[in-house]
């Protein structure tokens, strides 16, 4: 399609059997081998964007321990996105308890009303009941039996999809995909709180604000992006595993990891939305047999599980990372390892967005 003919509302939609693409697409790559599960990303996001009333239970970025049910509980089996022939796949709206919500604690009873010796801090969910789920309920749980138990940390956020199911679902056109960088935004002036987007997003990354009565989600820190500052989650990440950049920038880490080295893969490609967050899958030590001896070619994290997340290409991706790692440990050069290690911060992680936000002129107060 000729880019000159594209109207803003068309970007990200299927029109005449073709997905209308933005001029450029921002993307992230997360190297799962480096995630510490520290949740600094989630907290950075919360501090920056979701501190207001009605946003208490919102975690635009979450870091789940997997395998597990995740956030919201059981999201992978909820449907949404598109079928292989491009039809919308029905789903449902995840409930507050499934997201985990924000618990209330009896602080005043324990701390100020003299009952501190008998009463203990106990959480209550939005119904005033004992919570049965939380935003990070399965921390460090994982799967498998000792000595072959395993888990890894799995950061997730809105994928700013090339064919966003949320955008296609909104009957009001309140969601748009920016032509200059592909960021997907909900216009909360246009949103009427119908929540079709929450239903349609197969990654279940949209929350409902019960105070403002609108749907809200990750905005890829677009006001920071516009100032040359990396998104808060990426800049604050102590693991230095969140790469940010344009997908078509052949010199940048994103294009190298996704298109050239092919070691970064989208999550659940079969959902059909063409996500723009990519993952370098985790390597793991070999499984042990009953005598405690390593079983060659049987990684502790079962390949079948990784395939269920990243598809069959995950085998090749792991093999490439493994081979380059071996090269590097023999003292040979490896561009891939250099990229993944990210020696120079912030330049190697997000070359186009290295500006220190502390150097920006601030109009208001309260910036992180």
């Amino acid at each position, binding site marked *: 399609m000729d880019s000159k003919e594209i109207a803003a509302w068309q970007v990200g939609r*299927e029109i005449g059997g073709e997905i209308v693409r933005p001029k450029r697409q921002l993307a992230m790559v997360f190297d799962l081998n480096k995630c510490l599960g520290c949740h600094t990303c989630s907290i950075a996001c919360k501090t920056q964007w979701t501190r207001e009333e009605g946003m208490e239970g919102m975690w635009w970025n979450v870091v789940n321990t997997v395998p597990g049910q995740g956030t919201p509980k059981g999201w992978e089996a909820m449907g949404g996105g598109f079928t292989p022939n491009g*039809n*919308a*796949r*029905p*789903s*449902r*709206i*995840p*409930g*507050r*308890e499934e*997201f985990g919500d924000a618990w209330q604690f009896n602080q005043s009873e324990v701390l100020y009303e003299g009952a501190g010796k008998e009463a203990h801090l106990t959480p209550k969910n*939005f*119904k005033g009941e004992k919570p049965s789920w939380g935003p990070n309920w399965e921390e460090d749980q994982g799967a498998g039996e000792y000595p072959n138990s395993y888990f890894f940390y799995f950061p997730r956020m809105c994928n700013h999809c090339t064919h966003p*199911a949320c955008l*296609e*679902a*909104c*009957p*009001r*056109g309140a969601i748009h995909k920016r032509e200059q960088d592909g960021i997907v935004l909900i216009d909360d002036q*246009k949103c*009427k709180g*119908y*929540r*079709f987007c*929450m*239903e*349609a997003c197969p990654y279940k990354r949209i929350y*409902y604000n*019960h105070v403002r*009565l609108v749907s809200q989600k990750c905005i890829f820190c677009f006001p920071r992006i516009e100032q040359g500052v990396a998104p808060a989650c990426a800049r604050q990440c102590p693991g230095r595993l969140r790469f940010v950049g344009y997908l078509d920038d052949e010199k940048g880490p994103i294009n190298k990891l996704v298109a050239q080295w092919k070691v970064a893969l989208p999550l659940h490609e079969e959902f059909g939305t063409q996500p723009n967050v990519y993952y370098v899958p985790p390597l793991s030590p070999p499984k042990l047999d009953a005598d405690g001896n390593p079983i060659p070619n049987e990684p502790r994290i079962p390949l079948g599980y990784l395939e269920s997340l990243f598809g069959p290409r995950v085998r090749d991706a792991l093999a490439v990372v493994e081979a380059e790692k071996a090269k590097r440990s023999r003292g040979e050069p490896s561009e891939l390892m250099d990229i993944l290690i990210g020696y120079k911060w912030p330049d190697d992680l997000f070359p186009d967005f290295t500006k220190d936000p502390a150097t920006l002129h601030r109009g208001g107060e309260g910036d992180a």
Partner: protein
Amino acid sequence: MLAKRIDIGADTLGDPAAAFWGRFPARKVSLVPTPVGLQNSKYVLAKWRDGEYGHARAAGLQCVHNGTEIAFRLEWECEKAAASVIDNDHFADAAALLFPLSDLAPLIMGAEGAPVSIWHWRADRPKAARLNVATGIGTSSLTRNATTPVETKAVHHGGRWALVYRRALEARLPADDAAKFTPGGHHRLAVAVWSGANAERAGLKAYSPEWVELELEA
């Protein structure tokens, strides 16, 4: 239908349970589900193609005025009221009256250059209707200069909602976006009803496919 002119105070006029309403027969307005082909979303199409929505089959409509105020009373069957939104998948019952702001306005949400005014009541914000203007499907937005508020009062009783919309007969200026009424005048309106328990919202509703003609007694 004829809107009688009666000598009754504003408070009583705005009360759906007031006895005077019993003196005026209700006009039965047939409702149908909005055709699935008109749903402005691939997702809604896919999910609701075979689903049942637009549960209300008919509404009873009455209208009276007292020379300064006009009141519409709408009554429809709704087994279990959905009046609060606590969880993410809760939706509240709702009802709307739609008035053309131009002679050419199509009944379904108006068109460009031929807007409609929509009085949208929702059970979870029961005291006033949200006033919207629309110029086509998916375009409704809050009226910018809502100078003439529409008060609402509803009761749910015996498996039915009874709702009254009450407004000053004459719209205050600037009144471009407001429905206009004149004693002795002829007007038109349409009706829509949403069932919250069935997750009805947006185009998932029951609506009157034909205009209701209204004459105000002079």
